[in-house]
């Protein structure tokens, strides 16, 4: 079905886009890569009166690394994350996650900002950003503000972005020292949204013990969640599959899965436990490798 008609605006600068959003109000939708919004338009599940197409905002396509912070413009495409060239090579976790998104056509058009602002609870990138304690940068009528991932993902397809605000970039603090990451997900078919995905980052101290472990889960609640009880239990432990299994088995999982046509709530709980252990094992193994094995490590050399 064709989309219902709408007014179309294609600004070329961020201030121009913000003026349009202010003038058009809440009936306007922001269009980035279009891989989620266009099907909603053609299925007529959403019928905005106006679309503000931001794909021409070249200033949102940059990637830069400033010390231990990687800043990625909102319009950087999944395909670029997957290829992981230039400064993006410093965060291979993004590459591993982006390779799992949809199909190659989705990755060609889709953008990191679009995925984060759409906030599908089963999407890969919101969970990666949550695991890395990323910070969203938004610009609006009152200027620029930074929103930590813990506050940004407010619920099902809901973010902390205010009306008239535009997500312009995400800042990712890169793990320091001996760090490793892993992305594990379960899908029924290639390219599907994850039924459950587990993103793990493990940092080791000088003696090889876990200085810090972080786990974010997608697909088991209305937004990506961190397993903070498991994370707390892992501080200072000798990394091993048994230790990870014990931590996951003995502690509360802060997930709130619901059953649906794809999987029951209990099955999602089961997947969360299994995938979390797998992700931690692989992340710890990567963290423990010699520094020369930079390509496989989460933190780079």
């Amino acid at each position, binding site marked *: *079905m*064709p*989309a*219902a*008609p*709408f*007014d*179309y*605006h*294609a600004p070329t600068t961020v201030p121009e886009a913000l003026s349009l959003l202010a003038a058009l109000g809440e009936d306007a939708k922001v*269009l980035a890569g*279009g*891989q989620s919004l*266009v*099907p909603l*338009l*053609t*299925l007529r599940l959403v019928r905005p009166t106006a*679309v503000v*197409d931001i*794909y021409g905002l070249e200033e949102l*396509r940059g990637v830069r690394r400033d010390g231990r912070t990687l800043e990625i413009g909102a*319009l*950087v*495409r999944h*395909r*670029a994350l997957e290829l992981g060239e230039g400064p993006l090579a410093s965060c291979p976790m993004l590459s591993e996650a982006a390779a799992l998104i*949809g*199909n*190659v*056509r*989705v990755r*060609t*058009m889709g*953008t990191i900002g679009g995925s984060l602002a759409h906030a599908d609870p089963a999407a890969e990138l919101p969970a990666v950003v949550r695991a890395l304690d990323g910070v969203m940068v938004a610009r609006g009528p009152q200027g620029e503000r930074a929103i930590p991932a813990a506050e940004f993902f407010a619920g099902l397809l809901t973010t902390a972005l205010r009306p008239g605000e535009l997500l312009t970039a995400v800042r990712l603090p890169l793990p320091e020292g001996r760090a490793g990451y892993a992305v594990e997900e379960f899908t029924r078919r*290639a*390219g599907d949204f994850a039924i459950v995905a587990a993103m793990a980052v493990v940092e080791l101290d000088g003696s090889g013990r876990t200085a810090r472990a972080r786990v974010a889960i997608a697909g088991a609640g209305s937004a990506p969640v961190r397993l903070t009880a498991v994370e707390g239990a892992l501080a200072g432990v000798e990394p091993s599959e048994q230790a990870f299994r014990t931590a996951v088995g003995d502690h509360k999982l802060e997930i709130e899965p619901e059953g649906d046509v794809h999987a029951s709530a209990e099955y999602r709980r089961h997947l969360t436990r299994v995938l979390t252990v797998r992700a931690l094992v692989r992340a710890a193994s990567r963290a423990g490798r010699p520094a020369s094995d930079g390509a496989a490590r989460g933190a780079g050399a």
Partner: protein
Amino acid sequence: MTELTIAFTLNGKPQEVRTAAHETLLTLLRDELGAVEVKDGCGEGVCGTCTVLLDGEPVSSCLLLAARVAGREVTTVRGLAPAGSLHPIQEAFVAHGAAQCGFCTPGMILTAYAFLRENGRPTRDEIRRAIAGNLCRCTGYTKIVDAIEASALSDAGPPAASRPPAGSVTPRRG
């Protein structure tokens, strides 16, 4: 409702058309420009049969607003070889019987084309992953993989290196 005039290149030929902003590239190509080799499948970016190359990269034309192709190169399966001839990937599909009902074939060939340009000597597993986003409901995947593998290994070499499409391929954006 916004109407606009867009100029773009389709299989090497300049086009200038009037379109509505809510129209997709798929309907523009099929209904206005007669490019019915681009198939209309699921309409939500999953099946892959409406694949076209946008500046050389595979995209779902059903998920692309036509307004967005202004100034860019669009290549359909018809643009891979001069009229009356076949691209080596198409020849391999014929030789291996890789088309059953044929509905997925244009998207399969364009996806294979873009993939082989980046990976001229793929393994069968890499080929399977590359076409994971293109569905063949006849489930004739084995021969499709055979054909892609054969065209990669053929004396013609990686197809893209020997024969660029009618429209030139510009560097990836972003």
